[in-house]
């Protein structure tokens, strides 16, 4: 069953230049991209930097509006839903754990904003592997990996069905990456989540994804089950991505 379908998404950004900041050109971030996400699956969206995958994620989350195209949630246009209703369906985790938490509010307060009941903040923190006392601390007191856990807790608070993770591991050390990935797998099964996992690293996609979609320069170039894509990549870009994965000698 298709949970979210993106049809023909296009997005361009203006380039401003000169003293008067006039429009001197446009960048086409996404060109006619169509992807469907099945309920319960983990779809990895893979591509190098600047390929448009983050823009796509933000459009799906509702933070940016596409220039054209439709977003269909369980058969109905996503625009029909209010911001609050959308919040209960789609949530997102950002790439930089040092920028995704409000530095001036305590962890408990930030979770409380989304939970509407401070008692479960402690329980939520424990599900992501942190202690309940963390609620009283401020983000600057935590490491990158811990902050990412807090961000995950915040994203899970409204009990969404679809979780979009925008390169959540890229800013972390390799050892921490494996812990957070393990956390994702556990939460996925505990909460029955559908996950759109954005990454530039096919090795990570292989660890975690059911299906893989490859984007190059704003276009979807290849799509299929993880096994297919990783054992027999057809497009040159996918092959390049595969070759770029470091392998032990």
């Amino acid at each position: 069953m298709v949970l979210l379908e993106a049809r023909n998404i296009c997005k361009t950004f203006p380039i401003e230049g000169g003293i008067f900041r006039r429009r001197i050109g446009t960048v086409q971030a996404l060109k006619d991209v169509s992807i469907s996400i099945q309920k319960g699956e983990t779809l990895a969206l893979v591509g190098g930097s600047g390929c448009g995958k983050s823009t796509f994620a933000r459009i799906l989350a509702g933070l940016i509006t596409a220039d054209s195209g439709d977003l269909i949630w369980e058969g109905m246009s996503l625009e029909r839903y209010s911001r609050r209703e959308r919040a209960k369906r789609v949530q997102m985790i950002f790439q930089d754990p040092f920028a995704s938490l409000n530095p001036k509010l305590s962890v408990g307060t930030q979770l409380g904003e989304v939970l509407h009941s401070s008692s479960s903040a402690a329980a939520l923190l424990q599900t992501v592997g942190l202690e309940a006392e963390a609620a009283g601390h401020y983000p600057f007191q935590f490491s990158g990996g811990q902050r990412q856990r807090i961000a995950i807790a915040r994203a899970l608070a409204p009990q969404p069905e679809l979780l979009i993770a925008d390169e959540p591991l890229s800013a972390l050390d390799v050892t921490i990456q494996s812990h957070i990935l393990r956390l994702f797998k556990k939460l996925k099964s505990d909460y029955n989540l559908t996950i759109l996992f954005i990454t530039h690293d096919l090795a990570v996609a292989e660890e975690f994804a059911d299906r893989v979609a490859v984007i190059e320069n704003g276009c979807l170039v290849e799509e299929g089950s993880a096994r297919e894509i990783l054992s027999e990549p057809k497009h040159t870009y996918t092959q390049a991505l595969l070759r770029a994965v470091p392998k032990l000698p």
Partner: protein
Amino acid sequence: MITLYFERFRRNRLAIAGMAVIIFLAFLAIFAARIAPHDPIIQNLTQRLSPPSARHWLGTDDLGRDVLSRLIFGTRVSLSVGFVAVGISLIIGTTLGLIAGFFGKWIDTIIMRLVDVMLSIPTLFLILAVLAFLGPNIYNVMAIIGLTAWPGLARLVRGECLSVRERDYIQAARLAGISNFRILWVHIFPNVIAPVLVSATLGVGGAVLTESALSFLGLGVQPPMPSWGNILSIGRDYLHIAWWLSLFPACAILITVLSFNLLGEGLRDVLDPRS
């Protein structure tokens, strides 16, 4: 969080000195009636223009009033004008700046054009004109200083708001379905106040200076209510025979403004996100 700020603040000796002086001045202002050795208003013409002595530590003015007592009561004027004027500009400036920065588009345009217009009117002339028209008294002075100071603050707040608005944690708040008003007040505002607080603290010093200037010119606080500015004004006429009438109010103004400046600089170091 607060304890962290406290610790950083404690290390800045000058800022602590500034804060101490301000607390002392506030103390003087509140308990003026008990502390001042003489009545500031009752005239004593036999004691006119007498230099500093054991009885009158800072001398007397042209109507025989004790300068020290008048300075102490003048603290009330300076501090209240300083705080109220800045308070007015803070409330108006922050609100409009946040709204302009967050909502953008036509609201931003309207507010910022208004700010541009107000900032291009020469402040001094505007203040003088309004006071001449409405009549000079302490309340009008507070209001007009506040009303001419808010545009600068609004622009500052708007700038900070524009950059904070794009940060991931604000995007996450939008995603969570939190209302715009709540995002502005709970999430954006705390991240924007740091430079505003610094600017406001320095602004109190500026307001004190402006009030002193206005009172000096006769357009501010009117005698017999003592203000450092109007004491200075009297002193001007007697500069060659009663130097104490000019020196001491000037020192009072200097020390007060300096203290607010030191406090403001100290706050800037404490709140600087870089550390």
